[in-house]
């Protein structure tokens, strides 16, 4: 590129940045999150551990409080006013999740504790029914432990084999290898949408299309995707899609399993108990219809309502605006952090969301984390529950800054200064 062309490209980029800033007032957004006013050790909190869990807007906190103050009762049971109110709110939240994921029907939305429970549910019901000795379950080399271990347990029990699609040095899924590994023995593909350790956005639509050509269903782990990307389960034709509420500004302890009706309908129940039945005798129990068949016991009503409020909050800002703001921020952070001498980025895929994993010289990430913490900066250090990713790159751990809709360029600057401080301490 000529100097003039570079200047033009830069000016056009800056114009884009200004336009996005105009559409997305991050300072106004920050005022919605009371915890961001908190000070840590006399400094403003710089919260860059959003891939671990996100902070909650006042609207979510209030929705949970309001439920307990005004509407608390058990659902699907009582004939009384409050039970009816609670049921309406709970089922209303399910409807919000349905629209959020663009699912065909609300009965395809199962409330669970989070991604971990969702994947265990599918492994223990769909998996145990359909996977037999000699069969294969296909995952990728950048899965979170929650999308590895449930399948390992299943494979051990059934005498099946866990196959792993490799990733490139930049942290991208090797699609050709994926195609080669798909075969007549493959009974299910379980793959992340966005890598929690690397930030890679996986082309799930292509993967699903490839798997469907062989009639293999696909589960997508959307834990790191839903806060950053618009998800349309029908457009990508996902068979199962799972996410956790707390990573998308909702409460902990609530998450979602989306499954196509036909698949969920044919699956045996996961847990037995109240609410998941139509009738019970000691001789035989008839199971309830979807989604209740998979929601045994009193669910996390307040959690579902809080998640519904979080989705409304995100919709209010617009996922496209959020994605544009975060993309800007990640681009800025990638540029400024990688310019620090001694920094090595782990995960340099072309398409990324939300995550900047890095190493600094041979300083252990744990030490980086402690020094940044002294500056009020919260990042994650360690293997990020993705030890095979660390093994793939031949490292023990990384330092990971992960971004949310309320993060700012000033916070990235604070991170950069913090990393400089780490270099000084270890100079």
């Amino acid at each position, binding site marked *: 590129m000529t100097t003039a062309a570079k200047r033009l490209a830069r000016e056009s980029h800056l114009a884009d940045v200004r336009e996005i800033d105009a559409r997305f007032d991050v300072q106004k957004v920050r005022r919605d999150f009371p915890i961001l006013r908190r000070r840590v*050790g*006399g400094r403003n909190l710089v919260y860059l551990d959003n891939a671990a869990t996100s902070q909650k807007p006042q609207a979510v906190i209030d929705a949970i409080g309001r439920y307990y103050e005004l509407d608390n009762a058990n659902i699907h049971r009582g004939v009384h006013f409050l039970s009816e109110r609670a049921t309406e709110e709970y089922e209303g939240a399910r409807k919000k999740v349905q629209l959020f994921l663009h699912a065909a029907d609300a009965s395809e939305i199962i409330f669970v504790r989070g991604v971990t429970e969702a994947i265990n549910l599918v492994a223990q019901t769909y998996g145990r029914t359909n996977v037999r000795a000699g069969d294969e379950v296909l995952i990728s080399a950048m899965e979170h432990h929650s999308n590895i271990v449930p399948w390992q347990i299943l494979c051990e029990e059934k005498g099946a084999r866990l196959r792993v699609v490799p990733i490139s040095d930049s942290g991208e899924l090797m699609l050709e290898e994926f195609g080669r590994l798909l075969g007549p023995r493959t009974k299910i593909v379980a793959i992340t949408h966005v890598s929690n350790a690397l930030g890679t956005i996986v082309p799930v639509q292509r993967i699903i299309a490839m798997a469907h050509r062989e009639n293999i269903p696909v589960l997508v782990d959307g834990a790191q995707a839903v806060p950053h990307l618009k998800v349309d389960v029908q457009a990508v034709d996902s068979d199962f899609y799972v996410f956790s509420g707390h990573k998308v500004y909702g409460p902990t302890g609530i998450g979602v399993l989306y499954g196509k009706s036909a698949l969920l309908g044919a699956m045996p129940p996961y847990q037995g108990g109240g609410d998941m039945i139509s009738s019970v005798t000691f001789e035989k129990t008839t199971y309830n219809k979807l989604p209740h068949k998979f929601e045994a016991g009193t669910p996390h009503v307040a959690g579902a309502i809080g998640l519904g409020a979080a989705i409304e909050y995100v919709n209010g800002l617009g996922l496209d605006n959020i994605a544009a703001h975060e993309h800007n921020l990640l681009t800025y952070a990638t540029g400024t952090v990688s310019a620090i001498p001694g920094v090595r980025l782990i995960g340099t895929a072309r398409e990324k969301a939300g995550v900047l994993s890095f190493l600094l010289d041979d*300083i*252990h*990430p*744990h*030490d980086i984390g*402690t*020094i940044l913490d*002294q500056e009020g900066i919260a990042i994650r*250090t*360690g*293997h990020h529950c993705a*030890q095979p990713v*660390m093994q793939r790159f031949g490292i*023990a*751990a990384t330092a990971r800054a992960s971004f949310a809709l309320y993060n700012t360029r000033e916070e990235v600057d604070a991170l950069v200064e913090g990393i400089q401080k780490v270099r000084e*301490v*270890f100079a």
Partner: protein
Amino acid sequence: MPDLRELYQEVILEHSKAPRNYRELPTANHRAEGYNPLCGDHFTVYLNLAGDSIRDITFQGSGCAISKASASMMTQMVKGKTRAEAATLFEQFHKLVTGKSPANGNGNRAELGKLSVFSGVSEFPVRVKCATLAWHTLQASLEGKQDTVSTE
């Protein structure tokens, strides 16, 4: 806010960069592995025990500055000591890094010698496991335990 320099003292940084006795020990008759699954720190401690005394001790592995420096200085401190002496030293060291040393701690510190540079760890509770990983591993080795020691 606790002072970073209290934690990352020069001696600690120096040991983390150039750990002493950092090698396998061909004459080892005891060894143990220590692992902190939370941060991935992983050490192997090799021991040559002659009767009741530690004739030689080395270590290898990977970890943060605190855990590596602690392992390095531990090998220097316990070499030539008896099992009981090493155990007592660990007890005192543990009190030091968890802030449970007596307030006037001078007597304690005198026995701990240069290990007293780790006193700053007590201000950083999440780093106590880093400072004690090698010691837990040594303890396991002395007790002849085969399993990997975990600080989680």
